[in-house]
């Protein structure tokens, strides 16, 4: 890098703080990490307002493409673009190799766990996981017991959230085994990125992610009921008011399959049909983006009209595949999470490649006492919640919030877990006209059909508020493109 560039880079960085947290771009001494050097040079070489211009053009492109999500609790139909940061997050080939192996191992074990619990429940009989922890989970689905699932695959699509600790190590914060979302942002971010920095992208040797829809389709096809060689595959969405509706339409279009709502489906003699202009057409595989609770009013919540009455019985009869299976939320329960390393050992006889975050189970007296005494240092989460709801972040909380949580924990300890407040990694983001560090996580998407496939990269989510640790889009998070390098 020449001297002129380095002054411009200094101007861009301003007083960019570096401390004990891992910075994705720079080492603690301020030196750039090697994989970020070319990016930094490009940034330094751009005229001051050029970044701004590119950012605006990217934002506009998101808006006209309708890449928006719906914010709950506001006027119906409030649409926002998902905030997007121009700078990519770069993952080296070595780092990725470890992530890929670790996730493959982890998802294999989780799937075996689901199969076990919903059949013989050996892991419970062997006292590796406490029985009551499983049966008290609100996502445990008794109707799934003894049901034969195609290829024994319960989780066709998984999105696991990874963090990088200040040692540089990636750890798993949680697994999303129900209806993980966000993959459309991974795909559109990449498209916008290629338009924003074409030469840079080209020179980097980034592994592609664009084939994800094709892989997803192949995965769904491999799970079709036997005897249906040309399966009719559909994507079931809760409808236009769901926050991830854009994603549902995007994936359906990219895969060339029909996007159906519950009201499009009918069941007759345990066969699922969709209403078409040419009469009823049989449905073989449903990629389900509707939660268990809302999927079938006859089995689950009877007040829901988002799903299809009779769907579960058709599923039980083996006439239709639903992916992910019902009841998979059991394995992403935040209390069960604490046992995943033991599951890996139990089913695969291996040591976990990716570690968990240290987790306190509040059902155990000793751990609960420790947590209650240290609420101001810990993060407390409700086990069945996702999307950053039902959370207490100790260091950022008020005494009143802590008191409320303490009371809720005492009332129902099974419902909460606690974890240390993690100083997870930060990456530079383009904020105003400077680079500032923001906390980031990484959600890779894992597809499980006849084998496990992970597209290199995933969605890097960014906590856009300075110092914030919450990256969820529903809580003001944004995203970045993630570049996994070839070599």
């Amino acid at each position, binding site marked *: 890098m020449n001297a002129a560039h380095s002054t411009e880079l200094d101007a861009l960085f301003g007083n960019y703080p570096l401390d004990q947290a891992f910075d994705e771009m720079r080492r603690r001494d301020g030196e750039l990490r090697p994989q970020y050097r070319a990016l930094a040079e490009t940034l330094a070489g751009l005229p001051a307002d050029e970044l701004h211009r590119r950012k605006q053009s990217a934002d506009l492109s998101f808006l006209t493409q*309708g890449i928006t999500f719906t914010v709950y609790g506001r006027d119906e139909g409030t649409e926002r673009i998902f905030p997007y940061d121009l700078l990519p997050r770069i993952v080296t080939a070595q780092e990725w190799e470890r992530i890929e192996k670790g996730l493959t191992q982890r998802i294999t074990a989780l799937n075996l766990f689901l199969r076990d619990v919903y059949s013989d429940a050996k892991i419970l009989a062997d006292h590796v996981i406490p029985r009551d922890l499983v049966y008290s989970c609100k996502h445990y689905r008794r109707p799934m017991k003894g049901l034969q699932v195609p290829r024994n695959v319960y989780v066709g699509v998984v999105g696991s959230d990874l963090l990088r600790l200040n040692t540089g190590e990636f750890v798993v914060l949680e697994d999303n085994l129900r209806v993980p979302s966000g993959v459309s942002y991974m795909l559109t971010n990449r498209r916008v990125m290629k338009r924003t920095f074409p030469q840079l992208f080209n020179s980097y040797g980034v592994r592609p992610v664009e084939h994800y829809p094709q892989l997803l389709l192949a995965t769904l096809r491999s799970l079709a009921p036997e005897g249906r060689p040309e399966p009719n595959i559909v994507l079931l969405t809760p409808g236009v008011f769901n926050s991830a509706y854009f994603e549902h*339409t995007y994936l359906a*279009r990219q895969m060339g399959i029909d996007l159906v*709502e519950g*009201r499009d489906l009918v069941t007759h003699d345990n066969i699922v049909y969709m209403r*078409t*202009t*040419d009469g009823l057409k049989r449905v073989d595989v449903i990629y389900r983006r509707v939660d268990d609770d809302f999927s079938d009013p006859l089995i689950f919540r009877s007040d829901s009209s988002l799903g299809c009455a009779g769907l579960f019985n058709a599923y039980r009869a083996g006439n239709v595949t639903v992916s992910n299976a019902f009841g998979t939320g059991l394995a992403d329960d935040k209390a069960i999470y604490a046992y995943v390393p033991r599951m890996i050992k139990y089913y695969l006889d291996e040591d976990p490649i990716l570690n968990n975050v240290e987790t306190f189970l509040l059902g155990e007296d000793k751990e609960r006492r420790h947590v209650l005494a240290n609420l101001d240092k810990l993060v407390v989460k409700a086990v069945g919640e996702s999307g950053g709801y039902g959370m207490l972040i100790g260091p950022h909380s008020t005494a009143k919030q802590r008191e409320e949580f303490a009371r809720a924990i005492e009332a129902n300890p099974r419902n909460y877990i606690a974890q240390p407040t993690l100083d997870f990694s930060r990456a530079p983001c383009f904020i105003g006209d400077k680079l500032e560090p923001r906390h980031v996580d990484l959600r890779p998407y894992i597809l499980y059909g006849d084998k496990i496939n992970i597209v290199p990269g995933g969605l890097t989510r960014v906590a856009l508020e300075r110092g914030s640790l919450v990256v969820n889009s529903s809580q003001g998070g944004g995203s970045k493109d993630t570049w996994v390098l070839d070599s």
Partner: protein
Amino acid sequence: MLSRVADSLYWMSRYLERAENTVRQLDVTMNLMLDTGPDQLEARWLRMVAGLGKQVGMVWNGSLEDMAYNMVFDSSEPASVIYCVNGARENARQVREEISTEQWQRLNRLFHHINSPQAQDQFRADASELMASIVDGMYLFKGTTDTTMIHGQGWQFIRLGRYLERAYATATLLEVNQPQLFQPSADERSEYSYLELVGLLRSCTSFEAYCQVYTADLSPDRVLEFLLLNRDFPHAIRYCIDGAHEATDAIQRSGGRRSPDELTASIGRLHAMLGFTSIREVLHGDPAAFLHAIREQCLHIHELIYRHYVQYSIQSALAV
């Protein structure tokens, strides 16, 4: 294709056609009202509202600019342009996977354009220009639809919606305006009725096309003949019904498991009626009743489309 999707495409198309019709009539009326005496303003405005098929709403408040502004931007008013554009976009959003990305982007841009504060400023500054830009957005969408979408069932439902809406709108416009055309009140001077005739043609973008067929010699009979029975002009009712007829035919051929006998008969009857009627016969009888009958039949066809393709009973479908 899914029934719900067909329904949304059909309505997306109808809404856009309706918005376009409203913009055009509004533009023409505002222009005509420059030549209208102050005591006639309200009557002229009400005639336009009636020509848009609205019985209620849009009560005259004395200020043309205000009224026109509401007609474009009042999203709580179902007759307004913005309401129709929002409706079209909402329908498109529900079938986002069925239409092409290019189509969606055009429509989405139109939606953001008309919903932006700049559009309102622009309207205050130069209403005609703003309305022209909205119509441009619609033309772009239609062109994109024809060039980027598979010409399968979905496209045919879009055509069906467009032509039924347009036939209905033109029939309504003619029905409301025909008393003025044939019995100009005594105090109306002839240049006014000339302007009115030009306005009527412009409301259907057909002034230039008319001149090509009949020269600029405007007469009420010929105007009615042109807008009602011309075979080649896309805003003439006959052309629209021919189009709708083709579209239902194509839809039926692409499915083929169940045949919509009643629908085929109804649209075939209207198609034949317009194809084998001369303007002399219409004028000799009761033109208002003739136009009214066309509207009634359009409504009936709409119902049959629903009954056959969208809201059929499961028993009837399983029986096939």
